[in-house]
């Protein structure tokens, strides 16, 4: 179970047109989930079926929908995944890096804007030198400001940033992230990764804590890097709390999925919306099997 007790977590990849694997085309998703209302409807269904939390990137429509759903289901937790790499890449392409940053800042509350402005001014020399970790620290602030009212108990570092820092040996970024999440936001820092078998040994080697990890873990071994046996061995041996992502690589999770997760002591899973027919049943199944 994750530190904040969430067992069944809803992911939002398939609600934002970024479906990695699926039966529906991108146009279907884009058409259906174009507004916060349709997205909110999925959140409501999920909350009724028993989802404990939603893990999401900083996306305007999704956060708007979440805030509405939280009014009805105040216990529904929110786990931000920051920064929104896909959003930044897209906005940076459309508006340039500065333009993308401006748009983000434009969405912030005035007080948050003031606080970040003061802190960022102190970091100006390093920003001017384009120091990556300093820029990331500011980005963390900017992104989490959007989640502030949702009081997230845990935050995940986006897998592309985790894995980039991991491969390039950027230990300092992990330290900075852990510290910032706790001291600035009072949230438990988590790491999302697509390379579990590389991450855990590296954290150990760097003598860093092993936090809550959101990572692909499924019976097909999909995106379990460097290999399924390596990841399984790590889970058996390491004192690591894992939220399983991509629990079924190709469709809805089933009995095989739950048996697999349970055999490795995984008690928390991220479920994506696949289709209306099976959505509620999948969440109920997840609750039943992960709690057992």
């Amino acid at each position: 179970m994750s530190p904040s007790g969430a067992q069944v977590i809803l992911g939002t990849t398939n609600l934002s047109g970024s479906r990695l694997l699926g039966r529906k085309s991108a146009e279907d998703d884009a058409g259906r989930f174009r507004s916060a209302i349709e997205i909110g409807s999925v959140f409501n269904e999920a909350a009724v079926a028993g989802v404990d939390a939603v893990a999401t990137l900083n996306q305007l429509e999704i956060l708007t929908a979440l805030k509405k759903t939280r009014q009805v289901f105040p216990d529904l937790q929110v786990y931000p995944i920051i920064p929104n790499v896909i959003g930044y890449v897209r906005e940076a392409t459309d508006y340039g890096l500065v333009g993308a940053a401006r748009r983000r800042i434009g969405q912030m509350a005035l007080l948050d804007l003031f606080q970040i402005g003061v802190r960022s001014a102190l970091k100006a020399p390093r920003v001017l030198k384009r120091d990556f970790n300093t820029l990331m620290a500011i980005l963390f602030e900017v992104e989490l400001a959007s989640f502030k009212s949702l009081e997230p108990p845990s935050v995940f570092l986006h897998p592309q940033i985790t894995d980039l820092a991991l491969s390039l040996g950027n230990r300092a970024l992990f330290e900075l992230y852990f510290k910032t999440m706790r001291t600035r936001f009072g949230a438990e820092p988590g790491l999302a990764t697509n390379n579990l078998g590389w991450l855990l040994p590296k954290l150990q080697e760097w003598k860093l804590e092993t936090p809550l990890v959101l990572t692909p873990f499924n019976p097909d071994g999909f995106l379990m890097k460097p290999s399924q046996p390596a990841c399984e061995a790590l889970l058996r041996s390491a004192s690591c709390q894992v939220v399983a992502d991509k629990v079924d690589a190709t469709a809805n999770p089933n009995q095989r999925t739950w048996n697999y997760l349970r055999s490795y002591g995984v008690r928390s899973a991220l479920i994506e919306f696949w289709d209306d027919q099976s959505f509620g049943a999948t969440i109920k199944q997840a609750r039943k099997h992960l709690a057992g």
Partner: protein
Amino acid sequence: MTGASGFLGAHLANYAAMSGRDVRCLIRRTSDASSLDPKRMQICYGDLLDPASLRAALEPPVRTVVHCAATTSETRVDYAQSFKVNVEGTKNLLEACQAQGIERFIMISTQSANEKNPSTYGRTKLAGDVLVEESKLGYTILKPSTIYGPGAKGLFAKMVRLIDGVPVVPILGSGSRLIRPIHVFDLSEAILHCEGLQQTFGKTYDLGGRDLVSYEDFISLILGARGKRKPFVRVSLPVCQLLAGMFSVLKNPPFTHDNVMGLNQNQVCNIEAARSDFGFNPRGLREGLRQTFAASAESSTAPVRMQTPTKERPIQNVAIIGLGKMGLLHSAILSVLPSARIVALVDQDESLGAHVRSMGPQAPFYKSIDEVLSATAVDAVFVCTPAFTHYPIVRELVGKNLNIFLEKPLAESLDSAQKICDLLQGKSIIHAVGYMKGHNPIYGRAKEIIESGVLGEAILFRSTLYLSQVFSPKGGWVYDPKKSGGGIVANSTCHLLFLLYWLFGPMRSVCAQVRSFHSEHVEDAATALMEFKNGTAGTLDTSWSTPGYPVEQTEIVVQGSGGILEISDTQLRLYLNQNAGKLEKGWTTWHRAEMDKADFDLSPQYGGEGYYNEDLNFIEACQRKETPRVSWIDGLRVQEMMDAIYRSASEGRVTL
């Protein structure tokens, strides 16, 4: 680490170095150290029988000793020599450890080290184990079963050579004795894993593979993994002993008396304690053998796990030119490849260099390739700069005989692309171009299906590539046709064009239209009717101004005389009109999950495994001096297609 030049030792040393440990290897001056990379680990010379050399080898900062060295049963049996090395040598090492204040000692023993085994190897190793137990060190004794894995050293390699070389495979003894063979990677992982675990101190563990099999089954699985079938002949124990006696005059006998003595002993090897104490979870034997033989026979696109650099396949020193998005991506991937080492980051923009270095890479920054070459040796260069800079950069690099990976497209124009390929005349450099979809296993499987003929004749296709990127006028070199070569076609659709060329061969003719919705100087969308020289014809439709595609998506549907093949970035669907071998009539679907074998994936949503496989393939091609999977010549064909599309858009139908 002692015994680092041996089969287990070499794998362990490389694995430990790759996992970030500082490794010091103690080997004899006469040892073959070709499988150890002195740049990744420290190699010092000494001998277990020379206490002074041991103390020198254990000087700080050594904290842990892994003792792999031994006189084994593989060579001619010499009790005196075995006793010296396995007992006296171990004693010397333990004393040196105590003298140097080493606290952690991992003894690599053997299943043969038990009181029931009368062999020289077993007895002397058992005596060594007793010395370790009596020491005051924080020891762990690991007793592996038969070790197998890739490489030309060790008993297993010898056994495979024997099996390969004979028409009938001899089964020594009854063949029914049980063994639990362990893959050398699993053993290496276990050794490193238990090193830091307090609960393993003062304990002895059996280590074996997941499967407990008879010796005969082991041989059968080896044959199966090598795709061979051979009859067995049983050789009774007395005959084995007789033969071992005859072979004993040889320096390197096929088997020894010691080997024969172990033949009537089961090696059940209980791994439960290792499972519960340090999560030991070895792989299955069938899988392990497949991986073992695949490591040497796999196609260049399939990554080899924990590839061991050797003298024949040295680590490649790589420079990266261009530190934008693609330069960063390749830096990250190359950083995790054991076969590559980034030695230089190059860009004209110094602040960009500082930015990238602040992300973690330790390689020095330079402003030109000349500066790099005057400072360090380089084997290969990744050129990740804008397309219009490719030709001048490549001309300089080719002149210096460097192997070159060039990001796509090959150039900003057909003329420049042709000039780049002309530079290859009289040169033997390794060259690749970054059409990474050629390294995505889904497209590889699609190509196999088409080439296998199950689809019959490929008659028609329709193909699309969509992306949500341009919804207003933009600046930058990508949107300047003189620098990038064009819009969506030159920057993104070139990937789809590569796939069409790869699946159907060279294009014969094209009739295309391009349109702009938002961009001022380049096209935002294109549509084309294409015909290939193999007779396949079809359509291409592409746009970077289509909503709903935050991540680029490619689809190709091929209609053949025998069925339909639907190809996308995430799955393959095949419809067959009738059964074809193992493929049944009707729809069959393969998901990406079934094919993804890359060891590392930086960005699954952006085709991360294709990038990983692409870099691995290029580095391996440099090591082996082979042509990579996607060469500049392939890049030139794609450039011809791009050029034809643009010409057709203004001139009408173009025939190549």
